[in-house]
């Protein structure tokens, strides 16, 4: 059974990597819309998959957060990726499978997955 002792070990590991990790201003921010519209559309498994895959692949310099309604409910689940240089990619109608590809292709290799973006959908 997991105990809070393990959290101490995680903390110590995080502290070691913090030195090599970019600071917050240089982090890529991944934001998942988690209002009722997003959640009923399946945003929770998408958020969990993102967190899990980023942890599993040990992707550095990425922060995953959630927000309320992004305002495009018909496209939920929506995931926005904010680059430190101000660039933004909006992924729509996300699934856990798509989330895994976004982690590998976008967050790890820096190549946004065009076909999942809002641009591809409204074309």
């Amino acid at each position, binding site marked *: 059974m997991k105990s809070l002792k393990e959290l101490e070990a995680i903390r110590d590991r*995080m502290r070691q990597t913090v030195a090599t990790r970019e600071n917050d201003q240089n982090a890529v921010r991944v934001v998942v819309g988690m209002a*009722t*519209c997003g959640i009923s559309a399946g945003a929770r498994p998408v958020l969990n998959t993102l967190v899990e895959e980023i*942890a599993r692949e040990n992707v550095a310099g990425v922060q995953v*957060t959630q*927000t309320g309604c992004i305002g495009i409910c018909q496209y939920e689940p929506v995931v926005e990726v904010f680059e430190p240089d101000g660039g933004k990619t909006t992924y729509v109608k996300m699934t856990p499978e798509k989330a895994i590809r976004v982690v590998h292709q976008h967050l790890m290799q820096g190549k946004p997955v065009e076909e999942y973006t809002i641009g591809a959908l409204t074309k």
Partner: protein
Amino acid sequence: MHVLDIAQNSVAAGAALTRILLTLDEALDRLDLVIEDNGHGMTDEQAQAALDPFTTSRTTRKVGLGLPLLRQTAQLTGGDVAIESQPGKGTRVRAWFGLRHIDRPPLGDMAGTIASLMQANPERDFVYQLKTETDSFAVDSRELKQILGDVSLAQPEVALFIRDYIRENSAPLLEKE
């Protein structure tokens, strides 16, 4: 369960601390959910209106879904919702359900819900307590923060651990679920 939506109302109300208490009472055949916060609160009129599906402070859609839906679900199982709130002090939403009632929604991924709340609002605090007649499990973000020190609750690895920690420690209490 509608826990995330109701707890997000507390976050939206600026609550520094939100308590989520879930009690499973086999003998009384009752599931009790209390979500209590120290946010900006509501007047009696606002609290009454909040249970009406056509009230919402949102601008993005016309109906508030959280509380009216919670009430509807609770009533379907022989329960109800009660709101106590004081402007400037906070809000206590209590919902109760027939534990074994066929229309009682499953608890769902409570561990994921609590971990998501903590991850998304690392500057706020959340206490989650699960109780049965014989057992109890609680997690308090203030205690987690004390252990974590300068490491944030928003770190994906930390959030993942918290989810699994809650899930594993809750499992023995939820055997009948």
